[in-house]
């Protein structure tokens, strides 16, 4: 077997209308939620229909996508950077029938423009070894609730939600309008019988950002200064004998106001809104409510084209906590390296309360 052949040449995957107009697009319009029309310099028109999916899909689901694409799109389709499916049509006549077909099959069409598109997410209890929550479950529950914002474009701006099931933040959720982040709240439980056997002690020690881990001469394992531990799980990544998952300790935190694009304001980190919500499977009702509340406050308060963080920037964080009625705690105040940069170094603020 030859190795290192690399990915297949993407040219072989392009529908003819795209191959023909590659690099020659002139402008686009959003015809309706989920339906883009791109017009080429030469006049060709491409219709893209965006369909929301679970991302965690089975082969038969993919075959169904293929059925649809073969029926309406000459057998071409694509996935987006946020894991939606896009059906690519060169004939406007096929648009309505496609939409009808999708409707019948129960697929949501939307996610374009000022809407909420699919939630970028991770593995959770389905496949990872460090999660503080599940990924697909909370995502499904939240999207059920926000469904109307996927299929319509009635928000002030784009609203991106992402979920990561632990601080490793696969998916880089920390730049989202709303990020849902699994967190642990208890230090690793220490099994010093296994530590010296299965872990490399020096690398484990070096893995701790807060220097909470020291060697334990007695057992040749490690000691953990629990007061210094902020439950990042990085030691566990290197040493399986330091698990920190715990049904009561684990749960979800909510972060807001991040963005990636350079449009208007520059990219920005999401900031802590809610430090902890317990895991209540199967539908995480408190998480769903919390996200919905933030979306609604934003929808009500933001001006046209303002992203979540731009809205908060304008009204101020003190007002954000007031309008969302989210309690402010000592967790919100940064205490990581040179955190004091986040403190309010001015006599300017608004009274709330």
């Amino acid at each position, binding site marked *: *077997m030859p*190795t290192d052949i*690399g*990915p*297949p*040449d993407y040219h*072989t*995957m*392009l529908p003819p209308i*795209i191959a023909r107009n*590659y*690099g020659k*697009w002139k402008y*686009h*319009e959003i015809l309706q939620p989920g339906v883009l029309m*791109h017009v080429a310099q030469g006049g060709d028109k*491409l219709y*893209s229909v965006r369909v929301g999916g*679970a*991302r*965690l*899909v089975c*082969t*038969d689901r993919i*075959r169904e996508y293929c059925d649809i694409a073969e029926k309406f799109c000459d057998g*071409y*389709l694509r996935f*987006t*950077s946020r894991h939606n499916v896009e059906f690519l049509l060169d004939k406007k006549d096929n648009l309505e029938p496609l939409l009808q077909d999708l409707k019948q099959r*129960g*697929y949501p069409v939307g996610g374009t423009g000022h809407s909420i598109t699919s939630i970028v997410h991770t593995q*959770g*209890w*389905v496949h990872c*070894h460090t999660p503080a929550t*599940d990924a697909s479950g909370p995502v499904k*529950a939240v999207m*059920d609730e926000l*469904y109307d914002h*996927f299929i319509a474009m009635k928000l002030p701006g784009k609203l991106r939600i992402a979920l990561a099931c632990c*601080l490793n*933040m696969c*998916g*880089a959720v920390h*730049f989202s309008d709303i990020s849902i982040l699994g967190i642990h709240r208890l230090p690793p439980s220490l099994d010093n019988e296994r530590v010296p056997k299965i872990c490399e002690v020096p690398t484990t020690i*070096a893995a701790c950002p807060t220097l909470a881990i020291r060697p334990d001469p007695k057992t040749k394992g490690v000691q953990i200064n629990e007061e210094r531990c902020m439950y990042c799980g*990085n030691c566990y*990544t290197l040493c399986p004998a330091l698990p920190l*998952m715990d*049904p009561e300790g*684990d749960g979800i935190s909510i972060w807001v106001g991040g963005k990636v*694009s*350079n*449009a*208007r*304001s520059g990219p920005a980190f999401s900031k802590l809104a809610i430090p902890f919500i317990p895991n209540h*499977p199967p*539908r995480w009702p408190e998480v769903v409510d919390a996200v919905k509340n933030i979306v609604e406050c934003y929808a009500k308060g933001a001006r046209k*084209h303002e992203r979540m963080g731009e809205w908060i920037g304008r009204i101020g964080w003190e007002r954000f906590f007031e309008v969302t009625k989210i309690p402010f705690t000592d967790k919100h105040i940064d205490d*990581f390296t040179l955190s004091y940069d986040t403190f309010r170094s001015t006599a300017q603020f608004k009274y709330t309360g």
Partner: protein
Amino acid sequence: MAQSETPLLDELEKGPWPSFVKDLKMAGQKKAMSRDLLRQLELSYKERIGHWKHGGIVGVKGYGGGVIGRYSDRPDLFPGVEHCHTMRINMPTGWFYTTKALRTICDIWDKYGSGMTNFHGSTGDIILLGTTTNNLQPCFDELSEKGFDMGGSGSALRTPSACVGPARCEWACYDSLDAINDITHTFQMQLHRPMWPYKFKIKCSACPNDCVAAIARADLSIIGTWRDNIQMDPGAVKEYAGKLDIQEEVVELCPTRCMSWDEKKKELKINNKECSRCMHCINLMPKALAPGKDKGATILIGGKAPILKGAMISWVLIPFLKMEKPYQPIKDLALKIWDWWDENGKMRERVGELIERVGMRVFLKEMGIKPIPQMIRTPRANPYFFWWPEEVPQKPKSA
């Protein structure tokens, strides 16, 4: 009717959004592994805790990565997922597929795996979710035969990804797809044979909208931009004037306030010298405005998630670079960065963290890049800075 084995997960079949539980059940019809995956997940839902052991190292011949080993901690209850590894398969750049290609993958995966996938993983790979150690090699061999190869994992280059770019976007300032495809093929060795202090990610967005979120999660981000004036079609501007409040929605939201709108004449003026190419005005009036003609990319460095020293967002390294085949300058830069990082980085230290530790001045010197103000948001405020020995007079050493 028999009582469901998965009462909790069944709740997630309800509601309008597509349900992964349905897919797990569909796959479970055919595959014991998926059946047990669902059952183990139900247990997690009940106990509110994961049931996977810490991963082990498994793989395929000739490759150092691409497979995430995974074992159940309750093989007694769920023998089907005693082994449940994922394979990361490098997607076609831009995530375009023919149904033929997709069906091929599905067929192979039904043969060797659980039938469950992620389309796609958040780095961009095709994630084939769940197979046994024994099946890894034959599955890969068949995929390979059909033209698919492994993606990245471990302390290696990770599967590079690109926004849809020129394939379907009028704003592409360079060919993000071709660039990523070319870079990926050039650096197969780095992708497949972990050799570095830690992982390294490259992402290409062809304009500052950054639809692949490069700046937030790539060590090396390549974001399209231009150097000359925004192209304007004054007639089309006038057309938009009916649909948009150009003063309020465009001009007043321009971050550099470099535009002005004459409501009477319906004339838009841009002081391009002050424009920072944020895309906002273009986004709102795609028919009337477009990026300039002298196009290329801004190269940014250092983005990453929080582990270890806190999350970092990429920052500007080269304000403008032409992006033309064979992309030699960017490839040379990548190689130079990797060499330096490989030599100086500690284990599990991303390149951004290394630069932060030793200082940008050291990095720039090693790279032979001149410092310029475009690299910074603001100059330093603290007076704790260093001089190179050659910049200062030499003090006679005291006895």
